[in-house]
């Protein structure tokens, strides 16, 4: 399925809510050129009272609700609209990512439908999957590392 319509909606909602968020996970890896798929999109964001207000505004813009499926064990906020098949996870902490600011500074700016989406660099996605260490993360690492080697060989870092 083409994720573009969903990503455009999310990018617009993030812009309107003025929420800083960086796309991570397999969605980011796919945009960076990896032949991987995913059922949802994951973001890292700066969790603060203002950030949480903005996240609620993002959900409103998308006609979705915010759930906390793993409360209190995890600071994951799930923006869900089952009817539209929308699931976007927003995380304040990501394994292998020391700071949101550093992740954001290194992210690639992707223009979609007149809006900008920040996409984590492949190196950051690889680092977070190595740190998470779940079987499904370990399974996809060879693919991501192959893509990174090819990108480095082609010298095409930082494209948008």
């Amino acid at each position, binding site marked *: *399925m*083409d994720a573009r319509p969903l990503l455009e909606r999310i990018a617009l909602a993030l812009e309107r809510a003025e929420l800083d968020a960086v796309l991570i996970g397999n*969605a980011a890896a796919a945009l960076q*050129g990896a032949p991987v*798929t995913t*059922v949802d999109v994951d973001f890292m964001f700066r969790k603060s009272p203002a950030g949480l207000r903005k996240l609620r505004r993002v959900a409103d813009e998308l006609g979705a609700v915010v759930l906390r499926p793993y409360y209190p064990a995890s600071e994951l906020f799930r923006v869900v609209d089952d009817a539209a*098949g929308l699931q976007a996870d927003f995380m304040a902490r990501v394994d292998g990512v020391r700071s949101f600011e550093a992740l954001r500074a290194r992210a690639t700016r992707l223009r979609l439908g007149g809006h900008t989406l920040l996409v984590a660099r492949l190196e950051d996605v690889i680092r977070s999957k190595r740190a998470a260490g779940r079987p499904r993360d370990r399974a996809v690492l060879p693919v991501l590392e192959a893509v990174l080697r090819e990108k480095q060989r082609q010298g095409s870092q930082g494209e948008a």
Partner: protein
Amino acid sequence: MRSRGKAAKGKRETTPRPAGLDALRAESDRHHLDQIRRLLARPMAERTHFLRKRVPGGGSHV
């Protein structure tokens, strides 16, 4: 057509299994790299066909 007897069949030449598997692996790796190169040749905004849709009862499809 008359079938040949057992004695006349002779020994069949077969590729040793490890060498055959190695060749398959090399071909698979080559295709994989081709797939990566095709994706990298596209602009990022065109690499958006990655979403799977959940199906009722579990599982998902592209």
